[in-house]
C-alpha cells in the first residue's frame, strides 16, 4: 500500500470547504459532534469510519440535503469559498447546482439516458440551444466514462443499464451541471470490481476539475483514490490528514485499530 501512495503527488491547494464546530442532531440523536475540517480544492478527500458514525450525515451537510429530513438540525458553520452555506440568504437549490452529489445506490431517472444527463443543464439553463445541449451531454457522458457504451442508444431508458453503468450515468449526470464540488456517498458499494475500477479511475480524473469528497467502507479504495482522509468515529472526526499518513502512521489509537480491522 505504501508504494501505491508514494506515486501520488499531493499538491497543496487552496481551501474549498471549511467546516467549523458542526453539530448535527436527528431529533435527540447527536449524530455529528463538533466537527472541524478543511477540504481542499482539486483534491479527493475520503471519509472513512465504522457504520453509523455519521459519514453520510456530514456529507449531506455539505449540499444541505439534510434540509429534506424533517427531524434533522444542523449547527455550526460550513463555508464554501468563504461563504456560509447555511446563511439565510443561501438558496439550497442554487447550492446543490454548485455541489453535486452521487448517491450510494445508483438512482437514474426513469427517463432516457440523454434526458438523465440533460435534466440538470436544462433546469439551470446551461444550454443555449439543442446543439449546445447535445454537446454538454456528450461531454458529461465522456467524463462519466460511459460515452462509448451508450452513444448509440441515448434514447434508451437509463434504468435499463447495468448497475455499474447506472452509477457512471449518475456521475455523468452530476458533472453535467458543472459543479465545483462533487460529493459521493459510497458510489461503488453496489458495483463489481471492474465497474469499481472504472469509477475509481474516473474519480482520479475528476480531481483535475473538482473537489471530490468520497465516503467509502473500503480502506483500499480510500488509499487508492484519495489524497486526504478523514476518519469518523461515533460522530467525532477523530483524525484528518494526508491519506498516506493516516494509513501508515495514524496518531489516534482508534484510527489505527479501525484501519487494522479491530473496530468497525
Amino acid at each position: 500500500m505504501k508504494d501505491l501512495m508514494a506515486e501520488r503527488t499531493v499538491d497543496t491547494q487552496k481551501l474549498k470547504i471549511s467546516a467549523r464546530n458542526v453539530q448535527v442532531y436527528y431529533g435527540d440523536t447527536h449524530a455529528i459532534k463538533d466537527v472541524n475540517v478543511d477540504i481542499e480544492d482539486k483534491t479527493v478527500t475520503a471519509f472513512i469510519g465504522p457504520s453509523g458514525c455519521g459519514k453520510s450525515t456530514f456529507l449531506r451537510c455539505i449540499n444541505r440535503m439534510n434540509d429534506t429530513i424533517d427531524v434533522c438540525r444542523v449547527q455550526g458553520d460550513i463555508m464554501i469559498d468563504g461563504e456560509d452555506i447555511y446563511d439565510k440568504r443561501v438558496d439550497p437549490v442554487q447550492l446543490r447546482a454548485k455541489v453535486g452529489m452521487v448517491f450510494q445506490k445508483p438512482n437514474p431517472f426513469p427517463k432516457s439516458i440523454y434526458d438523465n444527463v440533460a435534466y440538470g443543464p436544462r433546469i439551470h439553463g446551461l444550454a443555449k440551444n439543442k446543439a449546445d445541449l447535445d454537446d454538454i451531454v456528450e461531454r458529461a457522458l465522456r467524463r462519466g466514462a460511459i460515452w462509448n457504451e451508450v452513444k448509440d442508444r441515448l434514447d434508451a431508458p437509463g434504468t435499463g443499464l447495468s448497475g455499474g453503468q447506472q452509477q457512471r450515468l449518475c456521475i455523468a449526470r452530476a458533472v453535467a451541471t458543472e459543479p465545483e464540488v462533487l460529493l459521493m456517498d459510497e458510489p461503488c458499494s453496489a458495483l463489481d470490481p471492474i465497474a469499481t475500477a472504472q469509477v475509481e479511475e474516473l474519480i482520479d480524473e475528476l480531481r483535475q476539475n473538482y473537489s471530490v469528497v468520497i465516503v467509502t467502507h473500503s480502506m483500499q479504495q480510500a488509499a487508492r483514490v484519495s489524497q486526504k482522509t478523514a476518519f469518523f468515529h461515533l460522530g467525532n472526526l477523530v483524525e484528518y490528514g494526508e491519506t498516506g499518513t493516516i494509513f501508515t502512521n495514524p496518531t489516534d489509537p482508534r484510527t489505527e485499530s479501525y484501519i487494522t480491522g479491530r473496530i468497525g
Partner: protein
Amino acid sequence: MTDMTSDTPHVHGTLLQADARTRKRNAAETRFKFYGILAIAVGLLMLVILLFNIVSRGTGAFTQTFVTLDVALVEDKLDKSGNRNIEEMKKVSTFGYAPLLKAAMTDMVEKTGMEGQISAADMAGILSKGAPAQLRDYVLANPDKVGQQVSFNFLASSRVDGYMKGRVSRESIANDKSISAEQLDFVDKLIEQGILKKKFNLSFITGADASDARPEAAGMGVAMLGSFFMMLVVLVLALPIGVAASIYLEEFAPKNWITDIIEVNISNLAAVPSIVFGILGLAVFINYMHLPTSAPLVGGLVLTLMTLPTIIISTRASLKAVPPSIRDAALGVGASKMQSVFHHVLPLAAPGILTGTIIGLAQALGETAPLLLIGMVGFIASNPPDGIASGLLAPNSAMPAQIYEWAKRADPAFYERAWGGIIILLVFLLAMNTIAVILRRRFERRW
C-alpha cells in the same frame, strides 16, 4: 478437534419417503389450496348468476315492437292555408293527427282483409299513445311531405310489446283493461302479415324518459347526458383539487399533528355514507346557495365531495410508492422541490392517480343515494339539454336514478327497462375500467 462432540448428531431419515411432519404440512397446503379455489369458484358463480340475470332480463329493453303503417298526410287537416307556414302548422295539436292514424289503420285493415274483426278503439290501442306526437314531429320537421303518403314505424303499445316478448299472455290479461283478447287476435294477424315486428330500438339508448302511460317510449339518453354532465363536474373539480391536496400533503406539508388530523379526517371522509353527502349538498348547495334542484351541477358537486377522498387516498398512495431515491436524485442535481415533484415524481405516480380517479368516477357514476336528496330521482327527464349551461343547470336525471325510478314504477314494462338500464350502466363502468387499464399501460410504457 479430532473427536466429535459427545452428543450424537441428528440423523435424517430417507428422503425417498416423506415423514409424518412433511405429510401433515403438505396436506395442510393442499387443503388451503382447495379452500382458495372454492372461494374463487363461489365468487365466480355469483358473478355468473348476476350477469346471467342482468343479461336475460335486460336485453329485452333493447328491442321494441314496431307497427309499419302508411299514413296519408292530408293537407286539409294539417295545413289548411296550404302555404306550409310552420307557425300555423304548429297550431294543429296531436289530437288533429289522431284521425290520420285512424284512417291509416282502417286502410291497413281493409288491405289485409281483416275488416270487422276489430273495433276502431281497439285498433288505436295497438299503437303507443305517443304515435300521434311522432307523426306531428315528423310533419313539422318535413312540411314539404304534407299531401303525400309516407310509411312510418310506430311503436306498439307496451302490452303488445309485452305479448311479443312473452311478458303478456292471454291468461295474464284477464284483469287488464289496457288490452283485450280480440286485440291479441288482431296482433297475431299483424304478425303474420309482417306489419308488426320486433326490432332493435336505438331510442332506448338515446331517447328521453316517458310518463307512466308510455313505457314503450322511455329511454336512457337524457339521463345519460345528466350523468355525463355530473361526471364532467366531478372530473373538473375533484381531479385538480384532489391531486393538489395530495401533492401538498405528501411532498410539502410538515409532518405534525395538524397534518395527522387532516390525514385521519380524509380517511374517515372516505368511509362516510354517500347519503350524508347528499343531505350536505341539499343543505349547502340548494337551501343555502340556492342552486337549482335536480341540476347535474349540484349532483356533480355532491359527487365531487364524495370522490375527493378516494382520489386523495389513491394519489397519496401512488406518490408514496415513488422511490425516495428519485426525489434525492432530482434535488441532488439542483432541482427545486416543485421541479422534483412535477418533473419526476408526478409522471411516475400518474398511472396510479389516473386509476384512482377513474375508479372514483365509476363509483360516482353508480351512486344513487345522494341524488335522491337533491331531487334527481323522480324527475322525468324528457328534454335533452341543448348546451353546456342547460346541461349543467337544467333539471335532469342520472343513469342510476333513472334505473331506480323505472324499477319503482308499477308497470312491468318499466321493470324490463330498469334491467336494460343496468346493462347500459355496466357497459359504461366496464368502458371506464378498460380506459383506466389502457391509459395505465400507455403511461407505464414510458417507464
